[in-house]
Each structure stands twice: as C-alpha cells, then as structure tokens.
C-alpha cells in the first residue's frame, strides 16, 4: 500500500518534471533545434525538398518530409511552444495514442530486449533500405544506456539502467512508461525522443509493451547488477 502510494507519487513527479523541463531546458537542449533563424519559409523548403528527394512516393513525402502539426510548432518555436501551442500539441498527440488490442501494456521483456537492441527498420531508398518484412527495432541504445552489459550506448537521452528497480512496477508507472515510448510528445511537447508508435513510426503497440516490460521487469538485465565479464 505504502509502495503503491510512493509509486503513484513518483509517476506524478516524473510527468510534472517532464513538462516543466520542456520549457525550462529547451534553450540548452538539442531538442530545441528550430529553423536556425533564416528567412526561408516552409513552403520554399518543401519546394526544394520535392526536387531533392525525387524517388520519394507521395505518401513517403507526406509522412517523412512534411511536418505534422507537432513538428511544425516545434520547428517554428525552436522547441519552445507557448501555452496555447503546447495545448495544441498535447491534444493532437493524445489523439494519436493507442494501446495493444488485448489492453496489456506490459508485454514480454525478452522480446522487448530484442526490439530495444535492434537498429533495423524504417530506412527507405535503395540498397540501404530496411526489409519491411522483418520486424523493426527501436535502436534505444543509440541514445540511452539500458542493460549495463550492453556496450556502446549513447548519451543523448538519460540512462535507463535500473529503470524498474528505481521506479517499481505499479500500474501508473507501466502506463507512463508505455506512453513515453509510444508517443514521447504526448508527455513532453517537443521532446527530442522520437515518437515510436503510430503510422509512419517504427513500432507496433505490442512491441512498445514489450519494451515497457524490458525496462520495468525485475528479471530483466536492465534491473540486475552488471555481469562480471562485461565490466
């Protein structure tokens, strides 16, 4: 009971801290990359982009080159939306949020480990394109340290080592973690973190649930001491 209360409290603190940090830290945050103060308009950019990406299908162009409402605001405001713009983004992103059909936000951590490590998926073009027949990975290690035994992590996002050990596995924490991976911008308007769920992004709802379990499960290597050999 006491644990549950603590967990709920920590979720609330996390979520609040996330929202505040979006405003307070934007100036020193790479997520704050705006349009670099130029006189170029989005219309001019898209005209150039259209000719510069001649092999993109109309669908690929709309999905990948054109900004949706969220990125348009983030680009325009240098990652620092005002209160009204923040509302527009949060409303739009919450409408994008989807959950696994079976309602389980906590999947199979072993599968989650695979999706977290995998860097395959979403690349289009020619010889370097990813085979869409293979499931996508999220390449989490590009930005985060997670399993302490995994070498070569990135530092663009915070370390997630001991994620579940520190936070516990309460329902609110599971939901927060799932939603953060599925759609980071539903929680922090111009988060640097990619949105992984939904059309045009890399993961299925079930894969997001698997990664949620990988981060939270007490048996996952994320929450166990590093093995000797890896030290």
């Amino acid at each position: 009971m006491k644990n549950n209360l603590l967990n709920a409290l920590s979720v609330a603190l996390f979520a609040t801290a996330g929202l505040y940090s979006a405003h307070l830290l934007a100036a020193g945050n790479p997520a704050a990359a705006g349009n670099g103060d130029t006189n170029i308009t989005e219309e001019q950019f898209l005209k150039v982009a259209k000719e510069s990406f001649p092999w993109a299908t109309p669908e690929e162009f709309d999905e990948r080159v054109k900004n949706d409402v969220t990125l348009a605001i983030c680009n325009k405001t240098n990652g620092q939306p005002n209160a009204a713009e923040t509302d527009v983004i949060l409303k739009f992103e919450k409408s994008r949020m989807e959950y696994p059909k079976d309602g389980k936000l906590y999947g199979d951590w072993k599968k989650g480990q695979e999706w977290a490590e995998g860097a395959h998926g979403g690349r289009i073009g020619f010889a370097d394109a990813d085979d869409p027949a293979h499931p996508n990975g999220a390449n989490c290690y590009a930005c985060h340290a997670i399993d302490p035994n995994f070498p070569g992590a990135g530092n663009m996002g915070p370390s997630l080592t001991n994620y579940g050990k520190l936070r516990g596995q309460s329902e609110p924490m599971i939901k927060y973690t799932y939603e953060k991976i599925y759609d980071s911008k539903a929680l922090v308007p111009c988060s640097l973190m990619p949105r992984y769920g939904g059309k045009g992004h890399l993961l299925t709802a079930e894969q997001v649930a698997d990664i949620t379990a990988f981060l939270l499960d007490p048996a996952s290597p994320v929450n166990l001491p590093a093995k000797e050999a890896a030290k």
Partner: protein
Amino acid sequence: MKKKIAWLCFAAPILFGSQITTTYAATPSDEDKKFEAYREAMADFNPGDFWIEDGEKLFHEKRGPKNVSLDGCDLGLGPGVVKGAYAQLPRYFKDTNRVETLEGRLLGCMVHQQGFNEEEITKPYYASLAEENGTKSDLVELVAYVAAQSNGQPYRVKLENAAEKNAYEMGKYAFYHRMGSMDLACASCHATPGLVLRGVHLPVMTDPATAGKVMTAFPAYVIKDANVRTWFWRNERCLLAMRMPFLKVNSDLDVALHLFQVMEASKTDTPIAVPGIKPRA
C-alpha cells in the same frame, strides 16, 4: 560507367575494418584512439589514392558520346583549372544559374560537355549493399582527384551573391529542421558538444574547428565500405538514419546542406587533406 572493385578487397580492410566496425570498444574514446593509430599506420598506404590516380586519368581522357576530356570544365577558376578548385566550392555558376558543389559541377560537365546520361551516372538503384560498396564510380574518382588538388589549402568558400546567400540560408533551415520518422534534425545530433550515439562521438558541425577537421578529410576512404565517399554521401547517410527519402546528388538540398556546413569549415585554416580515412561515416 561503373567498375566492380572486387580487387580492392585489401587485407587491410579485412583485418582492421571488421574489427573496428563490428566490435564495440569499452568507451568511444578508446575506439577513437585505436583508430587514430590505425590511421597513422595507413598514412603511406591509403587505398583512396587509387581513386585519385584513376580520377586523374579520367579527367584528361577523351570520353563520352562527344569524345572530349574535362579539360574544358570550369570549376570556378577557369576551364580545366583544378588546383585550388575544391577549396572555393560550392559557388554560383552563371552558365547553369545555380550554386554547385564540386561533385555537382563535375556531373554537369560529364553530362553537358561529354554527353553522358545523367541518370546513368547518379541513379542509386543498386541491388544490394555489396553491389553499392563494390561499385567504384567515375564521378567519385573525379571528385577525389580534383579535391586532392586543393590539398594543403584551407576551405575559403564565400557567400558573394544572392544565389549563394539563399542556398546557405536553405542549408541552415534544413540543418535545423526536425523531420522524418525519428523527429530529428541534423542539429539534434550535430549542434551540441559531447553527444554520443551508440558509442560513436558525434561531430558538432556548427563548430568551425570540428567542421574544418571533418570536411577537410572528405572525400574519404571509408573502411567499412572499402570505398571512397564524398560529402554528398556523408549527408545522405545521416538522412538515411533520419528515415528520410534518398537524396539526389547535385539537388538543391544537397548543395544547400554542403554549403551551410563548409562555411563553418571555411572559418578555419585547417588544410584540405584528401583522401581522409574513416572507419565508417
């Protein structure tokens, strides 16, 4: 137009390349140090030198349906002048009414003066990664040859007219523009010091010293590919990671991104030294 380079499977890339690209070092700086030692060892034997030698022959040879050499190709300093040409590109050219990179300008000369088919040269339709890596393109050989004729000189690219200024602004806009499936801009990774991506230190391309160091090494021999890669290709690889569509060489966006970055490199006195050697890129 394109030659297979199976013969280029040197022992070096096999012995060192696989090690460097497939194992993770304990820390990124360890890997960088290891590679620094390798680069020194390779200083007298850079496989990229073959691209320069072959590019020189290609440049002066009468080729294409019109059977002419590229000695009439104006790279900004007059027809056929290659010394120092790379150090002042991209720039605006009256005849095409465009800002062009060295790669784009050479492509234009191959098409307009020699009569080659542009799509034949630039089409990226490879069947496999092995085919792409194993293809030694005439255009890249030419770029490597001409670029090497600026060795020892720093970049001195200038924004002297409206077209150049506009291309620069477009490059800046694109560099800071979040897009693609990953919601990333070039600037998300390459405008903040100290960022590491899956164990790899990311160069800050808005920092003149770093831009100078990185861009003076391109075109570079990339060990992972056993091939020489130009700055166009370097930007295309980043766009690929952003899950953007394939960028066309010599497109306005190719030129704009190149110009925006090389203006930072032009603030330094770092001399051009191509071909550089890169583990990956």
